[in-house]
Structure formats: C-alpha cells, structure tokens
C-alpha cells in the first residue's frame, strides 16, 4: 500500500470520521444511533487507517494488549453499572430507582446510566471490529 493520494485523503478524513463516531455514541439516547453504529464507525476509521498505512502501522495504533483490555473492560464496566442496582437494594441493571442522576430531558448528560452503557457498548464494538480485522488480515509468520 503506497498510494500517496489514499494516504493524504485518509489523514484528512479520519479525524472527521472519528468525531462523527463519537458524536453518534454520545447522542445515542437523544437521536438515532447509539453504541452499535457509533462503535462500528469508530472501528471503521481505524480499519481505514490500517488499509491506508499498512497492517503494522494499524497494529501500532491500537496494540493487541490495549484492545484485549478494552474488550474485557467494556463488558466489566457494563456489569459494574448493573451491580450498582444490587448494591442499593434493587435488582441488576436498575436505572432510575438505583439513584443514577437523571439530568435534564434532552441534555447529553441525562437519562441515568444509559449514556455510560452506550459508551461501554461503543468501546466494545469498536475494539471488536479492530481486533477482528487485524486478525483477519494477519500475515502468517512462515
């Protein structure tokens, strides 16, 4: 992959893609979108980076160790948010009754744990897509 045009253009548009992905994740509870499409967009930006600059540069950007932590950590975050419900005497994954701050209707920080769970899902989906792609294109050592 040594196409100058592809590299320059990717370098320009990848930040925009990432900003859009983060926007979609953050506004999941207010507008269409959410963790799954947002995470997939974020993952796609890294996939584009890998395609333009080669597998090694992509692997350096998100090393295998980091993505391993992100994958487990995202679900553990999800479970931890759910366990708060048990902690305050309600059931697993309780939102309003567990005392999460509800905020103002229509704000980004509102709706209790929903934004946090959306972020956890977004991280999970993005890291999964990146790991899967890097594994799929992986060159054999022999």
């Amino acid at each position, binding site marked *: 992959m040594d196409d100058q045009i592809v590299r320059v253009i990717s370098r320009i548009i990848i930040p925009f893609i990432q900003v859009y992905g983060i926007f979609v994740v953050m506004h999941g509870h207010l507008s*269409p*979108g959410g963790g799954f*499409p947002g995470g*997939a*967009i974020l993952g*796609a930006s890294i996939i584009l980076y890998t395609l333009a600059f080669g597998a090694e540069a992509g692997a350096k950007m998100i090393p295998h160790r980091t993505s391993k932590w992100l994958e487990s950590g995202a679900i553990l975050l999800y479970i931890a948010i759910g366990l708060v419900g048990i902690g305050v005497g309600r059931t697993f994954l309780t939102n309003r009754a567990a005392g999460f701050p509800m905020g103002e209707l229509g704000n980004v920080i509102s709706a209790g744990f929903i934004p946090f769970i959306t972020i956890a899902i977004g991280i999970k989906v993005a890291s999964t897509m990146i790991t*899967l*792609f890097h594994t*799929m*294109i992986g060159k054999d050592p022999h």
Partner: protein
Amino acid sequence: MQILNLILVVFLILCAIAAGRTKDLVSAVVIFASYSLVMAVLWLMLQSPDVAMTEAAIGAGVTTIMFVAVISRTSRIEK
C-alpha cells in the same frame, strides 16, 4: 410509497439471487453489500433509523471488509 417499497423488495430479491449465482466471489460480495444498503434504505422507509444506521455501518461496511479480506487470503473464483 407502496410502489417504491415494492421496487425495493424486488431489487432485494434480485440482488440475493445474483449474489448466489455470480461465480466471481468479489462481485458476489459487492452485490451483497449493495443488498445491505438497499435493506438499510428500506428500513429507513419503515421508520426505524437506528436499525438502518446500524445495518449501513455494520452490515454493508464492516462485513464487506471482512469478506474481502478473507477472499484476498483465499481464492477468488467459485468452481
């Protein structure tokens, strides 16, 4: 509106048949990607933008990339 719906559904079925009958796997995957996109448009028409967005990002985007990555590592022509 109903006629557009009908056209999209017919297009979907044609895409599905074509994806099955094409011998070149890369073409089949590209047809499948367009199938996913048309499906996303159909879901947009059915008033579920969340699903349409997810299908466009995951179904048409990521799945296609995975397919192409695998075809590049295996063989391209179906016998």
